[in-house]
């Protein structure tokens, strides 16, 4: 792989950039791989990358129904943080955050990880109790998260309205300084390029139509729109479509898929220096490198695979944004879109072995999977390679819905991911 660098760009400039190679291969699928990953989103590509890099398993195919990074990876609002409450969650998200911090260099691809800080607003006594519970738990888990007074909130994020006249005045915030945003597409492309460089096959426009199992019940491979492809290990990393794929192997999932909408404003000069989230008034917002305000809305109330939703979901979100930032009222929504998020009953992911031997699943990230991408791929690769979970994802089992050992971030926190 040709190394990306400023020098390379300058050198290429002299010959009209004709010398750049394809960033990833576009091979015909082989008949047999050691591991098949279904889904070329960030998590799937990261899994393939770490399988190759950390476990030397390079005979890997990543199968993608559409174009790589085209699902939730390319549709999310790119918030990265790790200040989760439970040890299990803090463990995996902080593992991810540490990987984010060196990811551009590791992949030799600038994923523009911008540690602008993620501020989660509190608007009432209950919010304060919940936030502080997080702050304290995070501190003891080695995760940075600090409590800010309203004035400190204002100092950190000048455009915010901390006035008392609003309906729900801001009474403080939890700030994770190491949190931030990244360029979502670049994450998928960077992992794809680095994985392909180690021999991983990335096969786009290849839809999985069936999961094959042998007489012993174990996985033998998959049926695709491009024929049968065999492998003893198959990892399903298909976000919103997980239920559909797992059904092919006869595994029913505790998942529901909902539309999740987001929008961006027209680009403006830098105004918002950090990420701001509020679970009480239901809004999260950041400003991209291009200058657009990137705003996440909530899920629609019905299950859907349509990648669109109702307009009032956006309206509700913008109401909250203008409540917190009255100066944004004249900003203009430029584009809105939807993704399909798979939600578990306890709002925590499943990263685990399944009842089917050789079949692994990584799903249920709900509205907040992007931030976990490197960590998720990393421990999922471990789970597939070793046929047992890494200690970081040991709690994110399927069995927890049977024995009741949930990791209920939603119930415990009432904080949006």
């Amino acid at each position, binding site marked *: 792989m040709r190394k990306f*660098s400023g020098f390379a760009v300058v050198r290429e400039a002299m010959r009209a950039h004709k010398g750049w190679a394809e960033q990833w291969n576009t091979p015909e699928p082989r008949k047999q791989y050691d591991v098949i990953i279904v889904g070329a989103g960030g998590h799937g590509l990261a899994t393939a990358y770490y399988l190759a890099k950390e476990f030397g398993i390079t005979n890997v195919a990543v199968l993608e129904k*559409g*174009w790589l990074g085209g699902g939730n990876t390319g549709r999310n609002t790119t918030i990265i943080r790790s200040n989760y409450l439970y040890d299990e969650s803090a463990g995996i998200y902080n593992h991810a955050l540490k990987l984010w911090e060196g990811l551009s260099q590791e992949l030799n691809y600038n994923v523009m990880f911008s540690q602008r800080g993620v501020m989660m607003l509190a608007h009432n006594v209950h919010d304060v109790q919940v936030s502080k519970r997080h702050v304290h738990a995070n501190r003891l888990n080695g995760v940075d998260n600090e409590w800010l007074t309203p004035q400190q909130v204002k100092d950190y994020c000048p455009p915010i309205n901390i006035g008392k006249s609003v309906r729900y005045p801001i009474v403080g915030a939890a700030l994770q300084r190491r949190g931030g945003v990244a360029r979502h597409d670049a994450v998928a492309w960077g992992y794809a390029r680095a994985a392909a460089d180690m021999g991983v096959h990335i096969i786009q426009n290849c839809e999985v139509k069936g999961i094959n199992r042998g007489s012993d019940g174990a996985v033998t491979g998959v049926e695709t729109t491009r024929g049968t492809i065999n492998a003893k290990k198959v990892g399903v990393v298909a976000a919103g479509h997980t239920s559909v794929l797992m059904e092919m192997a006869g595994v029913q999932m505790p998942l529901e898929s909902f539309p999740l909408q987001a929008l961006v404003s027209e680009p*403006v000069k830098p105004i918002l220096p950090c990420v701001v989230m509020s679970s009480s008034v239901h809004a999260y917002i950041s400003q991209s490198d291009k*200058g657009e305000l990137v705003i996440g809305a909530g899920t629609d109330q019905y299950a859907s695979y*349509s990648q669109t939703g109702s307009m009032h979901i956006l309206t509700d979100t913008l109401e909250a944004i203008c409540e917190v930032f009255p100066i*944004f009222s004249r900003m*203009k929504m430029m584009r809105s879109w939807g993704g399909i998020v798979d939600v578990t009953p306890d709002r925590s992911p499943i990263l685990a072995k399944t009842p089917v031997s050789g079949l692994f699943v990584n799903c249920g990230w709900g509205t907040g999977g992007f931030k976990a991408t490197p960590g998720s791929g990393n421990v999922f690769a471990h789970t597939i390679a070793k046929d047992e979970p890494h200690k970081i994802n040991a709690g994110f089992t399927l069995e927890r819905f049977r024995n009741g050992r949930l990791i209920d971030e939603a*119930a415990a926190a009432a904080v949006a991911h």
Partner: protein
Amino acid sequence: MSAPNRIAGHGRLSPSNAISFTFDGKRLDALEGDTLASALLANGIQLMGRSFKYHRPRGILAAGSEEPNALMDIARDNGRRQPNVRAGVQEVFDGMMAESQNRYPSLAFDVGAVNDGLGRFLPAGFYYKTFMWPRKAWDKLYEPIIRNAAGLGKTPVEADPDKYANRFSHTDILIVGAGAAGLQAALTAAKSGLQVVLADENPELGGSLLSDGDVRIGGKAGGDWARNVEAELRGMDNVTILTRTTAFGYYAQNMIALVERVSDHLANPDSGLVRERLWQIRAGRVIMATGAIERHLVFADNDRPGIMLASAGREFLHKYGVTPGQNIGVYTACDSAYNAAFDLKQAGVSIVAILDCRPNVDSELLSRANDLGIKVLTSHAVISTSGRLRVKSMQVRSIDGGKSEKYEIDCLLMSGGWTPSVHLFSQSRGKLAFDEDKGRFVPDIYMEDCASVGSCNGTDDMAAALAEAKEKTNEAIKLLGGKTSRAKALSVENACSMDGFLIGSADGAGPDDFVKAFVDFQNDVTAKDIRLAVREGFRSIEHVKRYTTTGMATDQGKMSNMHGLAIAAEMLGKDIPEVGLTTFRAPYTPVTFGTMVNHSRGELFDVTRRTPMHEGAVAKGAVFEDVGNWKRAWYFPQGGEDMHAAVNRECATTRKMAGMFDASTLGKIEVVGPDAVKFMNMMYTNPWDKLGVGRLRYGIMCREDGFIYDDGVVARMDKNRFHVTTTTGGAPRVLNMMEDYLQTEFPDWKVWLTSVSEQWAVIAVNGPKARAIIEPLVEGIDMSGDAFPHMSVREGKICGVPTRLMRMSFTGETGFEINVPANYGQAVWDAIWERGAPMGMGVYGTEAMHVMRAEKGYIIVGQDTDGTVTPHDAGLSWAIGKNKKDFVGIGGLRRPDLVAKGRRQLVGLRTRDGNIVLEEGAQIVENADVPIPIPMVGFVTSSYWSQCLGHSIALALVENGFERLGETVFIPMEDRTIAAEIVSPVFYDAKGGRVNG
């Protein structure tokens, strides 16, 4: 006239209506009805903006909302400042302030333009390959530079002072677009008797008819016809006409979102006038007559100010009497550009030449050009242009090669043909088909109840468009049961031909390795950027878009999509439909947040619920807290007290004498019917059969998973009637869950639920003197302790009004909760106060209530429980009916992890130093002297200073807490570690005798 490019006798504006505005601080003249674009052009100004990445000087490209270049900041005053306004859309009003954007220090001299010189080092996606070393420099150096260079306008610095509005509306037929086809559709629909809405984004109806000097409809000049139709439509009751109104979103089941710009064009809008109105129209049938957008041509340096679409040139002339230049070249692949040249020539403007890249051109056009003395060169291309802040010349060469020739120009009109505006159709989830012959996508499969007519449907010929509009409208009328029209379609003469197109790079542009031939103007995406993306393996058009950012600018690809697609397809050696089209998403053009939010801001952002006694609390100086939508009196400071002092006093007064408290926000549900007991047994963990009429019981409700969902005191008013209370926040979800079970699991049970949360105002009077205070006010109830013991309810009167009087306590003192019909709440409250105050009674707020209940170890659901706590965990096993065979939660509670050891259980905590009040949310560890991560065994759920006990108290959820009474645990804070002992959660009056006083 001072404006050098205004041509007398042309356009629709009246020269007597002169107004003035400023542009970058300079005062300029305009005519009423001018757009900012036409006014600037009239003044000879071509330079209007800077591009996003290279900061290239840019002028107007299009005359309408698709404009990617001329985006301005428009202001009335500091708060009313709108960035990124398209110059061709903004109507000039007297006194308007326009400012150019994305330049420093000035539009003519912009230091950012250094990027242009470095352009070859900044190809598509260069930032993915660079800025990675040293690692720290990204945050501190590279990213700030990138961010400052990017972005267009600036956010206003003040809160928006303008008003916005919303209207939900229903109509039979909604017609989007009032060009020739839309007007024909509206005429047809209007006569059907059905309700019709006609919306157009422009101030005037007529669409392209207003920019066409030749076309005649029904024997009248196109513009006159449009005016007549408008007059006719406005006279009809069943027709609503919305001008300056853009349909921006097509949502499921024919819900169309539109924004009406009500007052941005007015110099002095009435203070009552809203700025914009959101329309959410549900239509029986939608007719889309959204027209087509002209494309530019992709050639080297095609972006200099003065280079614009041919249709824009024609529009400026016919609408505003403005010529975009004095010495105009025309470069086209489409017939319609000829008409622009002809009209300008006839208006006295010099047309240098028409360069047509096609070898064969309609002979009529050629002969007309010849008649007008316009030179036409077929099979020719513009291969470059010059001029820094305005185009000065163009190099022209035959497509077959040979020497190039230079022409001096001050304006170049271009046309690459027309792209049907299928945005709304595509948003409706309709499928497009590619029309190979004309290089465009047109509607194919419809998913909603709608139709496309006219040029948005690929029907370019105006006569055919009118016929189609009539036919499709008649179909709609028929489906909706209206009266179809049999009138003949109108005749059309002299319509301009839209034949001919070019998508992708223009021929003869030569190798473009080191030139910039722009595909997406605003984002500075050139043809070679798209080629680079394909070369680097980006094969899906979505990838190409995201890597190069083509189509991601504020026009969302209206100009650039087809060119980008064609160039990518060519590179890939694929047909265009195989490469695909990026998805069209709402909004069609950007919409202000204010419009989306409309009324719901300030105090209308959310409901503010106040209790019947709210004003009374205000009068007593209450500080309020937000609990859900409710405002609850938090504490009542007196004479400069802080919260701590006030709460201490409120607690002390209540415990020593008495206190009154507004408990009205509690949820209340009346459960009535012969199966009421059965139902209660199912919904609550407790058994209810033996609860006597007139008795109260504390009930716990779980979800099926066995975790506490809500709690509250339940009164049995009658054999078949329960008065159930819920938590304040839980009221709606409890009722919803009850209804769910009742309607779907037990539909045969004869029991009905009615919310009475707001029927009853609730005044709690607690304290040793509580009974003495209220007794004289009560009628018809024996208030003696024997007749009316703790945890019972009586009906009677208080202060002459009916009451459900409950003897219960959330403080541990003798207590009464007086329920009275809400509209009497304040009066009864006042009466009790009048009697109680002289006896030493005080009033207390939610904070004192919290303290006193914590002293008694009473939980608050949502604070001491969090959705992972079972009744067992909360020490409430006694509230689970041991002999019950079924209740909601019984199965969930049996799950292995819920009965395993190690669960967190609710206990009390006493800090070793009683003066330290723990922080709620603080984490508990067994040993703080270990390195991070420190294993946590629980956390503090509630913590207060207890004035009556003289030390702090806390409740906490701690692993195996019930077995650890007496053990010491630690609470590590940032600056110190606090030791505390695990104790019983009941701190005060452990025997519980005081409630019986």
